[in-house]
């Protein structure tokens, strides 16, 4: 997750918050409403109530805003919203949820965040709304139209250390993000470099690109915080260990210092140090994506949908020159890429819960989500029907000469939430990323740095009462 962290200008301006209050437009019926009225529910059952919604600055948010008056006409529910850049959004959200003030009723969240909010009981399971025929027309809404892996990612039974895909659904996914390898096909072809299928081959490919093409062989996120380990790195390490190694074991002992983890981490950091950009330790997702789009690097293992930027000639110098492949696998030959979905959830402090669910149902219905992708470039679609829509195929189908959609769909079959569920995931990731810095700057050997990081996480888990 966190690829949208701060989202562009959002990060830049930092403190700037936009408070938008949507005034009800004069009532006018339009064809759009007819679509929603096909659902056999009474959309007006909460008419006159109001909702306040917390949103992260994101293309999905952009797609939602112009449509909100439509929702208000459909339901008679008044919607106010607050949009914040990601970092500020999460701070404000936690402040609101922890006080249970109910300032945010519908929230933007996702798998790893849900673990943090569900543990103290701040957010609502959504199943009771979905299963209530008065509130949801299941035939019209079609929950089974979502990619099953994405729905599973948003379910959790509340057990620390496992249980993802089981138990209540805490948010409905509005997009899918997983991690693949993007590489410069032109350079790889010209210098006959093999598209890597193992981490060792990846390090070698990075070396060869740097040697032959004179640009950085690999670019990656590198700031000392969780996003650095959350995409290509964690996908790589889980694939390298055939999905058998986890950052914490069954007894919630942190296992960064497991020999397999040490080996992979060493290879990764060596690769980045030898063939990566000089400012790796300072690179955010945005810097890394921009550097690759500017033609400054041969490979990037990060969010799949960054392809939208790479393939846009207005934003990229390498449009049409990129190939896409799965993250390098382990001895078993299978890839275990990580997964993140932004989704809509509900705060438990919400007074108008029915109204909140009507909003979530409306915002995640096939038509609303199709519009988000077609009109506002909300990638990748979380619904199969949206992905298969001809307009969407036209948008994404040509990326990488068709290799993008093929790789993305292939990847989605095995991709899953990479992290072990526990509420201190962010903290664990921050500590993990900082240990990569220790190794990168030769302050400690990989084994020592990772061992220290394990101990540090263990201490936090104990302090938080998660681990005995």
């Amino acid at each position, binding site marked *: 997750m966190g690829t949208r962290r701060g989202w562009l200008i959002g990060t*830049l*301006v*930092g*403190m700037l918050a936009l408070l938008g209050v949507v005034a009800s437009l004069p009532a006018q019926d339009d064809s759009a409403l007819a679509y929603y009225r096909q659902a056999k529910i009474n959309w007006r059952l909460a008419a006159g109530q109001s909702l306040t919604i917390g949103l992260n600055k994101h293309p999905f948010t952009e797609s939602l805003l112009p449509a909100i008056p439509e929702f208000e006409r459909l339901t008679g529910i008044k919607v106010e919203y607050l949009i914040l850049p990601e970092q500020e959004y999460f*701070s404000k959200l*936690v*402040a609101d949820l*922890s006080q249970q003030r109910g300032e945010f009723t519908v929230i933007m969240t996702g798998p790893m965040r849900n673990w*943090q909010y569900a*543990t*103290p009981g701040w957010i609502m399971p959504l199943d009771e709304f979905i299963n209530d025929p008065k509130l949801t027309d299941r035939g019209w809404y079609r929950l089974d139209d979502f990619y099953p892996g994405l729905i599973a990612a948003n379910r959790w039974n509340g057990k620390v250390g496992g249980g993802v895909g089981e138990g209540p659904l805490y948010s409905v996914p509005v997009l899918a993000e997983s991690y693949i390898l993007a590489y410069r096909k032109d350079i790889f072809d010209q210098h006959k470099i093999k598209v890597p299928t193992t981490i060792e081959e990846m390090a070698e490919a990075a070396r060869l690109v740097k040697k032959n093409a004179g640009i*950085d062989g690999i670019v990656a996120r*590198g*700031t*000392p*915080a969780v996003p650095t380990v959350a995409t290509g790195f964690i996908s790589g390490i889980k694939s390298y260990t055939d999905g058998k190694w986890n950052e914490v074991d069954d007894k919630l002992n942190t296992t960064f210092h497991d020999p397999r983890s040490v080996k992979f981490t060493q290879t990764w950091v060596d690769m980045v140090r030898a063939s990566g*950009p*000089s*400012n*790796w*330790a*300072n690179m955010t997702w945005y*810097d890394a994506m921009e*550097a690759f789009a*500017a033609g*400054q690097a041969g490979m990037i293992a990060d969010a799949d949908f960054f392809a939208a930027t790479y393939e846009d000639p207005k934003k990229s110098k390498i449009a049409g020159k990129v190939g896409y492949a799965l993250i390098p696998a382990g001895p078993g030959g299978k890839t275990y890429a990580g997964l993140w979905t932004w989704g809509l959830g509900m705060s438990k402090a919400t007074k108008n819960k029915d109204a909140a669910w009507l909003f979530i149902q409306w915002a995640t219905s096939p038509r609303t989500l199709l519009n988000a992708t077609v009109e506002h470039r909300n990638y990748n679609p979380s619904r199969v029907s949206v992905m298969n829509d001809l307009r969407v195929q036209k948008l994404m189908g040509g990326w990488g000469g068709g290799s993008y959609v093929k790789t993305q769909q292939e990847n989605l079959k095995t991709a899953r939430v990479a992290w072990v569920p526990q*509420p201190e995931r*962010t*903290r664990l990731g*921050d500590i993990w990323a*900082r240990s990569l*810095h*220790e190794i*990168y*700057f030769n*302050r400690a050997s990989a084994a020592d740095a990772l061992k220290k990081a394990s101990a540090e996480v263990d201490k936090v888990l104990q302090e*938080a*009462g998660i681990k005995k």
Partner: protein
Amino acid sequence: MPAVTARGRRRQNALLPYLLLAPAFALLVGMLYPFGLGLYYSLTNYWLQYPHLFRFVWLGNYVALVTEPLFVYALEFTVGYALVAVLVQVGLGLAIALFLHARIPGRSVVRALMLMPLMMPPVITALMWKIMMASTTAGILNYALSFLGLGPINWLGSIRGAMASILIIDTWGNLPFVSLILLGGLQSLPGEPYEAARVDGATPRAILRHITLPLLSPFIVLAITFRMMDALRIFDVIYATTVGGPADATTNLHMLAFQYSFQWYQMGKGMAHAVVLLALVVVASAVLLRFWNRAATHTAA
């Protein structure tokens, strides 16, 4: 009747000071409440996600600080950075002020231009520099340096480079402020001692050392005080460029307090860091203000 009026007026007079002070009291409460709350939280293990764990730990957070390796480093970096930054910024600021005070052509233009960095929000300043300082192959700053036959320097991606970068960005943004204070001071100095010195045939260097610097000392101490307080709690530049990295090299107390409070939601620990920082700033400014008092009385006499 006149007596009543007089008493009424007296009562009015007695109330007046309080009425005039009322906004100040309101402001004081507005300032003290968050401060008191922060102090209170620093004595608890308040952790937003785990309300059920909440309890008083009294000085536990402070005791724990001592054994936290990053705290010790952050404390050293906070103090070390402030000392270096103040030295560099006041030194350069003095040089610039002396330069602008001299009768050189075009100085009014330079003075106006010099104000530019002051008009920029520090976060924007920092992000602008971050873009210029991008990698050794892509950054425009290294490109410019190459014409001088220098570099490339790994600005934000190396430990020493990142420390230097923070200092450069901070200095760029605050040098005008220091220069202006000192320039204002220079322009307010009396002319007689200079005339007397010139009559006695003193060298410019002797004049600077024995007349200008002593007379200017209250202003210098003032500039040091302002900059010291800001440099001790510098945050925006670090947050917008290195976020404390690489390898924690630019993590100061303010950054650490922020991380504990708003990234990890451990309010108790975060506030303990913040209180230590506050104590540091208070002590530093108290000492410096005493110097300032002394310098001011000295010069006046």
